[in-house]
């Protein structure tokens, strides 16, 4: 049986842990609110952008002159997987879930004889992906220094991806991130960005016929690269909110576990103390009886 002093130290240390996890939970809650606001504020842009692109893509998409970013290169041999994860750990299964989905997809593609290339965003994903797919890495984007994800960061990633596409390094690009559903649930999601797919607007018969300046094709060619950046930006924001949500619930669990542990240890401590007292009493009584 552990002695009293050890137990006491143990209780003190678990109490400290509980304080830390509690603080981390509060910080995550505050950050989550900010991340959700950011995601909320980017929504009008994304929605309108996709609506206009949907209309444009529907009218131009069928023709042969459609840009490659929309129609694809005509092959799906080389696949680029952009895996977006967080820069920090201690957020439950957040990173593992994204990586698991990406690994599954990469495995399937390789089994089908395709070439897989991986670009990671976020340190945690890189470390996990490296174990199995280290030889397929083509790059990593470090956002450690970025305090608040801005559109500029998304543009940077998009530029990297587009340069590689123009150089013919891959045919299809898919981004992996976690969609924020609510605090306890984040869904790992795969979204294909190149060739781009936009949901065609609902055809309610009242579709407006637009004049295009300069021309439909020119606008589409101008906007498609921006569409990649927009998709990456909203994925980054979703990821940011998901990360904080996952961390918050993970830390909530940790705090509760620490509480349970403290209760158990306290009972054990009290029992041992009682046992020591009983022992001492027996010794005294038997000593007195012997006289």
């Amino acid at each position, binding site marked *: 049986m552990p002695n009293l002093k050890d137990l006491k130290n143990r209780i003190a240390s678990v109490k400290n842990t509980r304080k830390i996890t509690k603080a981390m939970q509060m910080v995550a809650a505050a950050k989550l609110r900010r991340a959700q606001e950011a995601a909320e504020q*980017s929504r*009008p*842009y994304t929605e*309108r952008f996709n609506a206009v692109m949907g209309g444009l893509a529907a009218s131009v998409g069928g023709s042969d002159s459609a840009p490659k970013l929309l129609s694809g290169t005509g092959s799906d041999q080389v696949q680029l997987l952009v895996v977006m994860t967080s820069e920090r750990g201690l957020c439950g299964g957040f990173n593992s879930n994204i990586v698991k989905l990406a690994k599954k997809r990469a495995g399937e593609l390789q089994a089908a004889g395709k070439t897989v290339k991986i670009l990671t965003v976020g340190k945690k994903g890189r470390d996990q992906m490296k174990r199995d797919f280290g030889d397929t890495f083509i790059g990593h984007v470090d956002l450690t220094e970025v305090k608040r994800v801005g*559109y500029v960061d998304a543009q940077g990633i998009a530029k990297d991806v587009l340069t590689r596409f123009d150089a013919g390094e891959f045919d299809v690009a898919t981004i992996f991130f976690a969609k924020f559903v609510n605090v306890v649930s984040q869904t790992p999601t795969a979204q294909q960005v190149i060739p781009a797919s936009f949901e065609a607007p609902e055809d309610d018969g009242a579709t407006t016929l637009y*004049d295009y*300046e*300069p021309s439909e094709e020119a*606008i589409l060619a101008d*906007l498609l690269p921006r569409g990649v950046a927009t998709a990456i930006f909203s994925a980054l924001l979703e990821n940011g909110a998901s990360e904080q949500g996952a961390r918050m619930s993970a830390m909530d669990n940790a705090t509760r576990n620490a509480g349970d542990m403290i209760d158990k240890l306290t009972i054990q401590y009290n029992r041992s103390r009682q046992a020591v007292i009983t022992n001492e009493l027996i010794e005294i009584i038997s000593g007195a009886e012997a006289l």
Partner: protein
Amino acid sequence: MADTMQFDLVSPERLLASVQATSVQIPGADGDMTAMPDHAPTITTLRPGVLRVEGASGTTEYVVTGGFAEIGANGVSVLAERAVPKADMTQEDLDAMIEEAKTVYSTAQEFFENEPGPVDDAAKLLSDMVAMGEDIGLTSR
């Protein structure tokens, strides 16, 4: 005929303005255009320039780069990659933007030696930036 229309200015990061406007002057890629209520539905890409919104509370001006404007039945929406109220625009911002355009121009010159298309586009972007700088009263080096 309605005398005002809904005007929205959105950047990827936030909704900058959502007001009733009587007219909106848009720096379109093929030239400036002014949209008033009941304008024919049009979609145009933007060049770097100044967006002027006239509403009940006077004229508001924004500096916008990259993106497009959608003039529809319900009003005007401008989606700009970068949009800053003109008063908040500083010399440093402009310098950074011009610097960026210059880099794009020089890389375009290197990459597309025999293709005039992208080089011309980049040159236009740069000159648009400079013109915009002069328009808003900042010097461009």
